C-alpha cells in the first residue's frame, strides 16, 4: 500500500472534529485503498480527482450538518429563557421609565435627523441628473478671473464663433430664459420660455414624448415659430391632447406651431413650459457686447472639461484680437451637474458634517446612559451571577434591553424623518440653487431615501452595539468576582465618554455660533436699496414699437401708477436689482476733446427719471438722472461708487465724459455718483455700473418699480396690474414681487444653514447636558452614604454642592477645550460659508465656551442640589 497524497490527507483533516477524531485514521486507510485501485494513466486521473472531490464534498456536507445542529440547539437554548427575560425586561423598564424614554427619544431624534439630512444630500448632490450622458454634458461660461467674474453668460456672435470652431465638444448650444405673452380671456399672461439654439438637443439627448425635438431645421427663420411644450404644460394647459403636434399657440400675438412634447421627467435649468428656437439670425444679429446666453455643450467621449476650457479660451483670445474689449476673457467649461450643485455643495456638506457630529454625540450619549444603567444594576447583576446566571445570560439581559430600546427609538425616528425632510426642503430654497433638479428636490419631499434610511438604522444599531459592548463586557466579567463593586472604576470610564460628548457638542456650538454671526453680518449689510414697501413687476412687450411710442407708453404707465392711491412713486429700470440679471455695454472713456482714450465692457442700466428716488438710491455726489434728461447732446449719465473708484481713482468722475456702443448713448456727461447697490445679495460685492436715461433706446420689456405708502406692497399688486391693463389690456404685467422678498432670497441659503445648524447645535447641547446630568447624578447616588456621613459630621450643604461642582469642572474644562481646538480647526474648511467673520472669531469661541459651561453647570447643579438635601439618617440606612 502506498502513502496517502497530501491533498487527500488535508481534505480528511478538513472534516469536523466529530468525524475527524474518531474515524480519521480509518478514513485515511479507506482512501489509500481506493487510490491504490485507481488505474494508471488518464483514466486514473479522472477517478483520482473524483475521490478527492468526493472527500471535499463530504467535508462541506459534514460541516453543514454540524452547523445546522448547532443552530437548532442554540436557538432552542436561546428561546428557552426568552419569555422570562422579556417579562423581566418590561418590568425593569417600567421601574425606570425616565431611562427608557430618554434612550428612545435620543435615538429617535438622532435617526430622524440623520436619515432626513442624508436623504437630502442624496437627493441633491448625489442624485443622477435627469438627462443622459450626464458626465459629458457641460456648461461653458465667459470668465474673467482678473475682475472676479468667473461665471458669466456669452453673447450670440461669440457663441456662434465658439460653436463653429470647437473640436472638443460634439455640440454646443445657447440657452436663454425669457418670457412670452399668451393671451387668455383678452388679457395677457406671461409664460416662461427657454430659447435654445438648434444644437441644444444634440447636447442634451433626450427623447421627445410626442412629435420631434429641435434640429438643424430650426436654424432658419421660417422655422423660428416652431415650439416645444413641457409635459406638464401639455397636461394642464392643453388638456393632454394627443393631436397637439401641429396645433398652434399665439405667443406675443404670433402663431407658433407645436412640433413636440418634452418627456415628463425632463427638468432643465428653469423648468419652462415652452421651448422656442433661437434662429441663426437671432444669434448673429445681436450685439457682440450684449451677453445673454448660457452655453450648454456635450464633450466628445475622449475630451475633458479642462481640454475644452483650453480650446475655447484660445478661440476667445482670437476673437479678442478681432473685437477689442474681450481682452482678459477666457472660457470656463465645467460639468453641468457640478456647476448646478456648486452653490449648495458647501452648505449641504456642512449640514451633513453637523449631522454626523450630532449622531456621534447621540451615540456617545447612549453609551454613557447604558454604562450608567449597567453600573446602577451592579447589585442585581452580582446577585444573578451568584445565583448561577451564566455570562451569556447576563449579557443577553442587558443587551436585550439596549437593543429593544434602540429599535423602538430607530422606528420612531424613521416615522418622524419624512416630515423633518419636508421641513428641510422648505427651509433651503433649492429652486435658486439647484434649478437643474428642482423637480427631483420636490419629489424628495415625498419620500425618504430607503437606502439612506436603511443605512442610518444599521449605523445606529451598530453604533449602539459597539458603544454598549464595553458596558456589557464589563458586566459579564464581573461574574468572575461577584463580590467586588466596580462602581468607582466604572464611573471613571463614563467620565471620559462625557468629556468626548462635551467636546463634540462644543464643535457644533462653535460652528453654529460662527454661522449665526456670519448671517447677522450679512443681513446687516446695506444693499444700497430701501427694499421695504417696494414692489416690482415686469411690464411692456413693445420691442417692435417705434422708440417714441415705447417712451410714451412707459411714461404714461408710470404716470398712471403714480396717480394711484397708496402709491408714493414709481419708475422704470431695464434690469431691476436682485433678480439676478445684468446687462453689459461697451463703454468708451473720452478725453477733453471728446476722443475715446480707452474702452471696456461694463454693466449698464437704462433708467427713467423717477426710478432712482423710488429705489432709494443714495446720492454720494452730484444729482440723479431726472425726467428732463432726454437724450440729445449733451446727455448725462450717473455712475455708481465702484465705477467711479475703478475708472476715476483721482476722484474726477463728475464732469467726465463717456460713450457707449449704442448709438443713442454718445458723449454722456457724468452728473452724479450713487452708492453701490449689491444687486446679487449682500454677500456679493457690487460691480461698476453706468446708468443712462432710458428714453434714448428703451428696452422692450422693463421692470416697473413702485414704492407704496406703508403696508405690504404685494397687497397693491392686483390694483397696479389692473391699472396697467386699463392703459393697454394686451400688455403684460407679470411676476409682481416684493423687493424685500427678492433680497431675502439671496440670504435665504445662509439663513437656512444658520437655522439648521443652530437646531442641531441646540440638540447636541441638550444631549451633552444630559450626559453630564446622568454621570454626576449617578456619582451622587452612589456616594449617598458618604454625603450623609459628611452632613452628619457637620459639613454644610453649600460645601457639598461646591465640591460636586468643582469635581465636575476638570471634566467640563477638558471636553470644552478639546472641542474648541477641534472646532477652530474644522471652521477653516468651512471658510467659504462665512461672511464678515473669520474662522477663529473670538466672539463665537467665547460664546461656545459660555454656552457649554452654562449647560454643564446646570446639568451638575440639579444632582448637586439633591445631594445637599440628603437626610443623613436616611442616607446611613441605605447602605
Amino acid at each position, binding site marked *: 500500500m502506498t502513502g496517502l497524497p497530501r491533498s487527500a490527507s488535508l481534505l480528511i483533516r478538513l472534516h469536523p472534529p466529530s468525524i475527524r477524531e474518531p*474515524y480519521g485514521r480509518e478514513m485515511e486507510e*479507506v482512501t489509500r485503498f481506493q487510490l491504490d485501485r485507481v488505474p494508471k494513466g488518464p483514466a486514473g486521473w479522472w477517478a483520482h480527482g473524483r475521490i478527492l472531490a468526493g472527500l471535499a464534498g*463530504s467535508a462541506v*456536507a459534514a460541516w453543514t450538518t454540524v452547523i445546522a445542529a448547532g443552530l437548532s440547539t442554540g436557538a432552542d437554548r436561546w428561546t428557552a429563557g426568552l419569555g422570562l427575560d422579556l417579562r423581566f425586561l418590561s418590568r425593569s423598564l417600567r421601574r425606570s421609565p425616565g431611562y427608557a424614554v430618554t434612550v428612545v427619544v435620543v435615538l429617535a431624534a438622532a435617526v430622524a435627523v440623520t436619515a432626513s439630512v442624508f436623504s437630502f444630500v442624496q437627493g441633491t448632490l448625489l442624485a443622477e441628473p435627469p438627462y443622459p450622458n450626464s458626465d459629458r454634458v457641460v456648461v461653458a461660461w465667459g470668465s474673467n478671473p482678473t475682475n472676479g467674474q468667473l461665471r458669466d453668460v456669452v453673447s450670440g456672435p461669440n457663441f456662434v464663433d465658439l460653436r463653429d470652431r470647437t473640436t472638443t465638444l460634439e455640440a454646443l448650444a445657447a440657452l436663454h430664459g425669457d418670457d412670452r405673452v399668451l393671451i387668455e380671456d383678452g388679457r395677457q399672461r406671461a409664460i416662461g420660455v427657454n430659447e435654445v439654439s438648434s444644437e441644444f438637443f444634440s447636447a442634451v439627448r433626450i427623447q421627445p414624448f410626442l412629435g420631434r425635438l429641435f434640429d438643424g431645421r430650426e436654424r432658419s427663420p421660417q422655422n423660428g415659430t416652431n415650439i416645444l411644450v413641457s409635459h406638464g404644460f401639455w397636461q394642464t394647459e392643453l388638456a393632454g391632447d394627443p393631436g397637439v403636434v401641429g396645433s398652434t399657440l399665439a405667443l406675443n400675438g404670433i402663431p407658433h406651431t407645436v412640433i413636440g412634447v418634452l418627456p415628463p421627467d425632463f427638468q432643465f435649468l428653469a423648468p419652462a413650459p415652452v421651448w422656442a428656437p433661437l434662429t441663426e439670425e437671432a444669434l448673429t444679429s445681436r450685439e457682440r457686447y450684449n451677453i445673454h446666453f448660457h452655453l450648454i455643450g456635450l464633450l466628445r467621449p475622449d475630451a475633458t472639461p479642462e481640454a475644452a476650457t483650453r480650446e475655447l479660451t484660445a478661440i476667445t483670445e482670437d476673437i479678442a484680437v478681432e473685437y477689442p474689449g474681450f481682452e482678459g476673457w477666457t472660457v470656463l467649461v465645467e460639468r453641468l451637474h457640478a456647476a448646478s450643485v456648486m452653490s449648495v455643495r458647501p452648505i449641504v456638506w456642512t449640514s451633513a458634517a453637523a449631522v454626523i457630529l450630532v449622531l456621534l454625540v447621540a451615540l456617545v450619549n447612549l453609551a454613557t446612559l447604558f454604562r450608567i444603567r449597567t453600573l446602577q444594576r451592579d447589585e442585581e447583576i452580582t446577585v444573578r451571577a451568584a445565583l448561577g446566571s451564566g455570562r451569556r445570560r447576563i449579557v443577553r439581559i442587558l443587551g436585550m434591553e439596549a437593543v429593544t430600546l434602540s429599535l423602538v427609538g430607530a422606528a420612531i425616528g424613521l416615522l418622524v424623518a419624512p416630515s423633518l425632510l419636508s421641513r428641510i426642503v422648505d427651509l433651503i430654497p433649492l429652486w435658486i440653487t439647484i434649478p437643474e433638479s428642482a423637480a427631483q428636490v420636490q419629489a424628495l419631499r415625498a419620500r425618504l431615501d430607503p437606502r439612506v434610511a436603511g443605512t442610518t438604522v444599521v449605523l445606529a444599531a451598530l453604533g449602539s452595539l459597539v458603544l454598549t459592548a464595553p458596558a456589557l463586557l464589563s458586566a459579564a466579567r464581573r461574574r468572575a468576582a461577584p463580590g467586588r463593586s466596580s462602581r468607582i472604576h466604572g464611573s471613571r470610564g463614563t467620565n471620559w465618554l462625557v468629556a468626548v460628548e462635551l467636546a463634540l457638542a462644543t464643535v457644533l456650538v462653535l460652528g453654529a455660533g460662527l454661522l449665526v454671526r456670519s448671517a447677522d453680518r450679512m443681513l446687516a449689510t446695506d444693499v444700497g436699496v430701501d427694499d421695504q414697501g417696494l414692489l416690482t413687476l415686469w411690464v411692456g412687450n413693445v420691442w417692435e414699437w417705434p422708440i417714441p411710442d415705447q417712451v410714451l407708453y412707459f411714461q404714461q404707465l408710470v404716470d398712471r401708477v403714480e396717480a394711484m392711491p397708496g402709491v408714493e412713486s414709481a419708475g422704470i429700470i431695464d434690469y431691476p436689482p436682485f433678480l439676478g440679471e445684468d446687462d453689459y455695454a461697451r463703454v468708451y472713456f473720452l478725453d477733453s476733446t471728446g476722443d475715446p482714450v480707452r474702452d471696456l465692457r461694463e454693466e449698464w442700466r437704462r433708467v427713467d427719471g423717477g426710478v432712482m428716488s423710488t429705489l432709494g438710491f443714495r446720492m454720494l455726489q452730484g444729482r440723479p438722472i431726472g425726467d428732463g434728461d432726454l437724450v440729445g447732446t449733451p446727455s448725462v449719465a450717473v455712475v455708481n461708487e465702484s465705477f467711479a473708484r475703478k475708472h476715476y481713482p483721482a476722484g474726477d468722475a463728475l464732469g467726465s465724459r463717456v460713450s457707449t456702443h449704442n448709438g443713442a448713448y454718445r458723449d454722456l456727461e457724468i452728473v452724479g455718483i450713487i452708492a453701490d447697490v449689491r444687486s446679487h445679495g449682500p454677500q456679493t460685492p457690487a460691480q461698476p455700473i453706468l446708468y443712462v436715461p432710458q428714453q434714448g433706446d428703451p428696452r422692450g420689456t422693463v421692470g416697473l418699480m413702485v414704492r407704496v405708502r406703508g403696508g405690504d406692497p404685494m397687497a397693491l399688486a392686483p390694483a397696479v396690474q389692473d391699472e396697467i391693463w386699463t392703459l393697454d389690456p394686451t400688455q403684460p404685467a407679470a411676476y409682481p414681487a416684493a423687493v424685500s422678498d427678492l433680497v431675502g432670497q439671496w440670504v435665504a441659503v445662509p439663513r437656512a444653514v444658520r437655522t439648521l445648524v443652530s437646531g442641531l447645535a441646540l440638540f447636541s447641547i441638550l444631549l451633552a447636558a444630559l450626559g453630564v446630568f446622568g454621570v454626576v447624578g449617578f456619582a451622587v447616588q452612589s456616594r449617598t452614604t458618604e454625603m450623609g456621613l459628611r452632613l452628619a459630621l457637620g459639613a454644610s450643604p453649600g460645601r457639598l454642592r461646591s465640591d460636586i461642582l468643582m469635581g465636575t469642572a476638570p471634566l467640563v474644562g477638558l471636553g470644552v477645550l478639546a472641542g474648541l481646538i477641534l472646532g477652530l480647526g474644522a471652521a477653516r474648511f468651512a471658510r467659504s460659508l462665512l461672511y464678515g467673520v473669520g474662522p477663529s472669531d473670538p466672539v463665537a469661541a467665547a460664546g461656545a465656551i459660555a454656552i457649554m459651561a452654562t449647560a454643564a453647570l446646570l446639568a451638575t447643579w440639579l444632582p448637586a442640589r439633591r445631594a445637599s438635601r440628603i437626610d443623613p439618617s436616611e442616607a446611613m440606612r441605605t447602605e
Partner: protein
Amino acid sequence: MAIQAHLPLKPVTYLTLLILAQEPTYGVVLLDKLEARSGGTIQLNAGSLYRTIAALVDAGLLTPSEDSAPSGGVGAPRKTYSVTDLGREVLRAEVERQSALLDLARELDLQETR
C-alpha cells in the same frame, strides 16, 4: 428513540446494516461489499462512508469493537463494526415495511402490465 423514527432507511444505510448484520467487518471491506452488493450503484468515498457509520453509531444501531490486529499482522489495529440489537430490530422493521410495499405492488399485478 422509537424504531419507527429510523424508518424508512436510506439505501446506503439499509445495505450497510444488511452487510454488517451478516458479518461484522471493518471499513475497507464494508466499502468493497457495498459496491459489490449494490451492483456498483453505491460508490462511497471515505468521508461519506464514515459519516454514514458515525450517524449509525450515534443512533445506537452499530457498535465499534477494537480488533487486535489487522489481517496479515501489519499496520494499526482496526475497528470492526457490528449491528446492535436495536440495529437488528430496525433492520427487521425496514424489511417488513418493504415486503408490505412489495405485496401491494404484487396485488396491483404491476409485473403483468409491464
